[in-house]
């Protein structure tokens, strides 16, 4: 009976189906025969966008950094010179660079240390709804306005804020006061200290560190950890010799985010921290109030150069060997 039905249907169907009608059918056939054309059509618009808008503006920026400003007239001289780069090495500007790079390095390090156990838990143990909860918990802060979060932290870290209160309740006020009385990292309250800037940076960029590390650890088969242990490695040795090297591409990817985002940010140190500037603030000030676009451009080149060296160093150290 069913055999009959099937053979009945095959009487109607030809071995080769007729072309589907209209322009869409002809286009489908054409693109199927010329996959290169399809690829070109798909890639051309984004490449144009990237090439003209993104790379173009980057080149314009680079070019600006080789111009200089006339100190008397305040006009930009469009003659190629390294004078503006020389200005970067003035003590005040060098301070800004060193301060920003140090902060970015510390934020990156702290983010990695905090992120790793969370990412490890998520990759190794979290299943089903716990995994969903993990993603929600990590991403949720990214959904709310960055400015709102930073102002919230301003309140948390303020002298009358909840953190001071918690320290007092724990009878640890001496610890907080002691820390705040330290040079450089201290200040009148956490919200006007580099410590506060650091805490908020770590908080805001942490998801960008957790997710790549989690993705890297997710790809490490669980039996590699067992194999290491089986071969006599203590948990610490397994971490150093297996987990860390295999998670390193993720850590490097995450650190590119935390490092470069900290290098370029100008809002967090503006709201939380001291009056001393970071690169982002310097760029903002130079291109705005000071009107010194070349110096702003030169400042912007600094993070790009640092990231270039960072990636080159990471590659040489074999950070991407496991990819």
């Amino acid at each position, binding site marked *: 009976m069913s055999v009959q039905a099937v053979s009945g249907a095959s009487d109607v169907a030809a071995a080769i189906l007729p072309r589907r009608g209209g322009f869409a059918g002809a286009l489908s056939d054409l693109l199927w025969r010329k996959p290169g054309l399809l690829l070109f059509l798909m890639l051309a618009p984004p490449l144009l966008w990237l090439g003209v808008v993104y790379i173009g503006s980057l080149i314009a920026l680079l070019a600006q950094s080789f111009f200089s400003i006339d100190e008397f007239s305040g006009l930009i001289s469009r003659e190629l010179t390294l004078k503006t780069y020389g200005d970067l090495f003035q003590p005040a500007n060098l301070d800004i660079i060193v301060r920003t790079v140090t902060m970015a390095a510390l934020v990156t390090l702290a983010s990695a240390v905090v992120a790793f156990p969370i990412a490890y838990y998520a990759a190794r143990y979290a299943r089903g709804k716990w995994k969903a909860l993990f993603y929600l918990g990590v991403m949720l802060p990214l959904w709310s306005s960055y400015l709102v979060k930073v102002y919230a932290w301003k309140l948390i870290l303020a002298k009358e804020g909840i953190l001071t209160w918690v320290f007092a309740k724990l009878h640890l006020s001496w610890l907080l006061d002691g820390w705040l009385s330290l040079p450089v990292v201290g200040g009148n309250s956490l919200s006007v200290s580099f410590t506060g800037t650091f805490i908020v940076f770590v908080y805001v960029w942490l998801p960008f560190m957790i997710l790549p590390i989690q993705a890297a650890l997710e790809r490490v088969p669980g039996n590699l950890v067992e*194999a290491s*242990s089986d071969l*006599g490695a*203590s948990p610490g040795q397994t971490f150093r010799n297996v987990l860390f090297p295999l998670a390193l591409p993720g850590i490097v990817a995450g650190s590119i985010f935390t490092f470069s985002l900290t290098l370029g940010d100008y809002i967090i140190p503006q709201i939380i921290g001291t009056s001393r500037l970071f690169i982002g603030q310097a760029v903002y000030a130079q291109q705005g109030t000071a009107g010194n676009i070349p110096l702003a451009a030169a400042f912007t080149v600094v993070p790009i150069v640092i990231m270039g060296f960072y990636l080159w160093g990471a590659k040489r150290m074999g950070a991407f060997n496991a990819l």
Partner: protein
Amino acid sequence: MTPAVAFQKTSRHFGAVRAVDAVDLEIKPGEFFAMLGPSGSGKTTCLRLIAGFEQPTAGSISIFGERAEGVPPYRRNVNTVFQDYALFPHLNVLDNVAYGLMVKGVSRDERHRAAEDALKLVQLPGYGGRKPGQLSGGQRQRVALARALVNKPKVLLLDEPLGALDLKLRESMQEELKQLQKALGITFVFVTHDQGEALSMADRVAVFNDGRIMQVGAPEDIYQRPASRFVADFVGSSNVLPPDFVQRYAGERRWGSLRPEQIRIRRDTSGDGVAARVVSRHYLGAATKLSLDADGLRLHATVPSGAAIPEDGAHVMLTFNRDQLHLMEEQA
């Protein structure tokens, strides 16, 4: 003699699931021991209990007389060849093999020399510089073996090590493993779901089902004298005969097993025997296997090549020697 591995009423329960349930087992030193069973029968959990990846929920485990409960894997002189090899992808072959010595603090020169020797042992000399990703499945399998053997373990655990290899490679590796085990004298504990592999390689076989051991014995015992219906069903291609059938032809009301090659087929349907009809024929090269229907009971018989083979649907008489009918229990 102290057993290499001893389980005493050892259980590993995962909540309500009894992966391993009150198992008693002794593996002798220098023995090639196979744990055979269907998936989920508890054989791999037993292996993981010996390695230390799992801890027993009840009972005890001793390795060469020393109690092993609560001892982490890295303090057991036991090494594992994992099912999918678990080679470290970021290390080259030499560093993979030398890993166990490296974490024990052996100097670079010394451990690299030992690793080279181990690679020679598994017939991969000169492969040290490659990454695991550049090797074939069979080569990875050998590296995993070398990585375990370089530590000179007291017991080597092999978790379905040949499962991912193609038939030809598997057969040559079976041969090689067997010879390696003889030469080194290390106790091998081998987990497999392939009865042919277990029977051909092991000195003794334990058949697992539902977290329990159904039978332990030499391959011939397991094959020729299965203790229970399950073992006969799982291990052999034996015909499992229900009590009614056995009573009718052998006088005892018990389960029986009869190997296909012990059934004789007669075209002449008069006289004594079991009347049956040929359902299908499978040509195996050296013999042809017949599927037969004996009044609702499905039986298999093999006819050597060259003998006359009845066609599909033919009515035949089956006879067998009553001595060759093996009687057994339904449950172990």
